[in-house]
């Protein structure tokens, strides 16, 4: 029974630990530099902490409010509730709250601080374009995000980035202010202050950039993990692949016009297969390219056959 897609994701755990170690080190180095430079450290920390805790505590409410998602009862959406219940029952998971967003854009997300308080939200557009098996695939994906505590993981990961950002801001103004005071004081520290600001800004910028990229990488990896989890939950990776293609509009690329009708348009046959990957764009995106996700799902499907 040990097929590749069924194995536990040790790589994920390792990557998470590595990412946190790297981020923590960066954070500490950054703090160390600030402390060394004598920036008003305590006020910065207090403000940043309060903001982060608030962000964390209200995260699900903020997300639901900002997306316009309404939690719905079983009476309002019996089929959607039934579908979610089937998957959670099969996989021994707590049932999340279900929310619906009145939007024609097909999308879904999961949020929540803990497994029990989590919410899965889908748009009406998603329910319109997907059949029930494809919808199961998407719900499975979101349920895996919940099971893997991805909201917590990403929030914690973002925390470092956020802290670095705040410190950079405070550090920047603090540094200017400090430098100015030094000037009034007789010019003793002027030269040193200017150099320090530059160093500090450089360190802050690097910290922020690296942590930003690491978060994006974690996020992309969590997406693959959620796709795999969904495939395990539903046993039908190809349905999620189908759903992903529909959502991304890739499905519209599969033509419906007859080959015999387009044959005259020879241009169709000389378009080179697009193999060039946009690596830079990939670095900054939170989701891996759909084609790659579909490919992985199809590999899972092949290994299950």
């Amino acid at each position, binding site marked *: 029974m040990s097929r590749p897609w069924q194995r536990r994701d040790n790589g994920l755990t390792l990557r998470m630990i590595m990412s946190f170690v790297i981020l923590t080190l960066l954070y500490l180095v950054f703090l160390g530099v600030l402390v060394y430079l004598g920036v008003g450290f305590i006020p910065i920390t207090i403000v940043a902490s309060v903001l982060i805790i608030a962000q964390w505590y209200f995260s699900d409410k903020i997300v639901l409010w900002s997306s316009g998602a309404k939690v719905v009862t079983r009476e309002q959406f019996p089929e959607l509730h039934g579908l979610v219940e089937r998957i959670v029952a099969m996989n021994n998971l707590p049932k999340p709250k279900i929310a619906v967003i009145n939007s024609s854009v097909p999308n879904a997300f999961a949020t929540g601080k803990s497994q029990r308080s989590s919410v899965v939200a889908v748009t009406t557009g998603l329910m319109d374009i997907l059949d029930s098996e494809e919808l199961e695939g998407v719900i499975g994906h979101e349920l895996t995000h919940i099971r893997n505590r991805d909201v917590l993981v990403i929030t914690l990961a973002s925390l470092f980035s956020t802290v670095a950002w705040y410190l950079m801001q405070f550090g920047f103004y603090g540094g200017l202010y400090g430098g100015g005071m030094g000037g009034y004081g007789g010019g003793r520290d002027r030269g040193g202050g200017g150099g320090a600001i530059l160093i500090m800004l450089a360190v802050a910028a690097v910290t922020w950039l690296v942590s930003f990229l690491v978060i994006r990488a974690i996020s992309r990896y969590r997406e693959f993990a959620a796709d795999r989890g969904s495939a395990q939950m539903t046993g039908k990776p190809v349905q999620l692949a189908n759903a992903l293609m529909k959502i991304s509009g890739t499905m519209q690329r599969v*033509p419906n016009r*007859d080959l*015999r009708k387009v044959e005259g348009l020879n241009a169709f046959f000389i*378009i080179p297969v697009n193999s060039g990957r946009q690596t830079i764009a990939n670095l900054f995106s939170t989701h891996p390219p759909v084609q790659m996700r*579909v490919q992985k799902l*199809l590999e899972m*499907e092949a290994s299950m056959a």
Partner: protein
Amino acid sequence: MIDTFLKKLGKGGLYRKSDDHREEGIFSLSSGYITLQTKLDLTSTNRCGICIKNVNGTYFSNTIEEVQEFLRISNSEFRTKHILINDKYGYLWIMIKGISIEDILVASNGIADVIIDRGFKDQMLAAVFEFRKTVSPNSNLDSSQLEPQFLIFNYKREKFYPFVPLASQEKRHSDLELVLASIISKEIPWETDMSVWYPMWDMPFNKMRT
């Protein structure tokens, strides 16, 4: 004329090296079909259709005459039957039925050789191979899964892609097509660009007596 056909049966014709990958492309199905059988319970119906753009003129009709002659002569060797059908799009279909998939692969390749030798390579559109689910007594497949599933070989791009039409409407079973892709795309020359997975509606497979 008969000499030409007999030569084709020998090494010089059928298995000659060519500048294109058409032969190795189509022949990859001779191992690929086993994968379809073991992993998807899809068996070849041993029927295929070669779709050629019709040309007015005696040279083309002579060529088609030669193709038929070739099929008649090689009949004893490949055990194939064939019919010609003109479709509403102005294309000529050479429909072949054999005893095994090798028969139709060799026959379809021989046909292509004749047509290309006569300079009509650009008229060759596609070779379509038909598969069906094997029905085992205790299977509970829904009827849609029993519909034929096709692999289309595009002669222009020399690649295969899947085509599973929904019965009686111009729609496709995209999930079954993706399953096909997942199973066989590594084994045969595969069209990875889905935007050229052009369907072929109303193929004259039902016009052939089985």
